[in-house]
């Protein structure tokens, strides 16, 4: 299957928009700073936790970053399939 440029760019923009919307920056006031959609590949908090092991998950997560990229690629491919089918039915 050949990827079309415009649907691919639209999917990328939607994904970037969702990442921006889901972004939180509250670590400075003891909340959480979270980046990534649908999984947070960056997580940090300056707050105090009763269970210090929680802080071991803080920082950049390669696992979630790859998962986000994988989902992005999947969304682009599915988006292109949907657009191609829609075009074929409307010819």
């Amino acid at each position, binding site marked *: 299957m050949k990827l079309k440029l415009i649907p691919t760019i639209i999917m990328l923009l939607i994904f970037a928009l969702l990442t921006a919307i889901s972004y939180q920056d509250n670590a400075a006031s003891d909340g959480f700073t979270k980046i990534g959609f649908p999984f947070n590949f960056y997580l940090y908090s300056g707050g105090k*936790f009763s269970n210090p092991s929680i802080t071991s998950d803080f920082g950049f997560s390669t696992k979630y970053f790859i998962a986000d990229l994988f989902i992005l690629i999947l969304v682009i491919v599915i988006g292109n399939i949907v657009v191609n089918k829609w075009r074929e039915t409307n010819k």
Partner: protein
Amino acid sequence: MTSLGLKLKVAILDRTKDKVTNLFRLASVMETQLKRSYQISYQTYINFPISKFNNHNRIINSGLDGFAYKTFFSTIKKTVNVSFFMKYRIVRNPDQKMNNEHLIQIMDNIGEMKNLYGFAHNIGGSTVSLNVSYVNNIIQGLDNNTIPHELGHTFSLLHVDDQSTLRSDSRQYWTHAKQNTKDSTNIMFSGGSKYNTDLTSTTVVGDQINLLINAYRNGKLNLN
């Protein structure tokens, strides 16, 4: 000598399912802790402009061009005595918070609050959430840090040691060497710092009060 009065109005709300916290007792402890931390006396240097006349009403001329309208700054050392006043009321829902109040809300130990002592919703904001699991420690006097710390964030103070946050403000950071020697009992050490202890992290320094004053003057306090 200068006197500075910090006045805080607080609305206290219990948003937990069981509502077991004695809010009146919490308010009383809160006032005691805030007075302990913020009611300090410190020395600071104040720059004030002098134009045309100095204290003796003599015209001050610029050394080079001789014009009298140039503004000169004189630095004086002042002792500032800070007084802290708190008024509180108990509310039943967050909508009852008035614009001139801070909201202290007690939350269940679930979701993002899980294992987190508490957090301020914004730097310079007016809402603080406390985890109900640790409120008893506050009331019993075992945790003297959480309330002054979180309210410190609403007074525009950042962590003194935290350089990992995306938003940074170099005025708030002390080097590791300074942390120990300058004020190792400061309230604003981040949760992960070895200097942050529930019982003894209770002090504020004059620089932080000055930051608070600047934030107030620049309209950066009491934000929603």
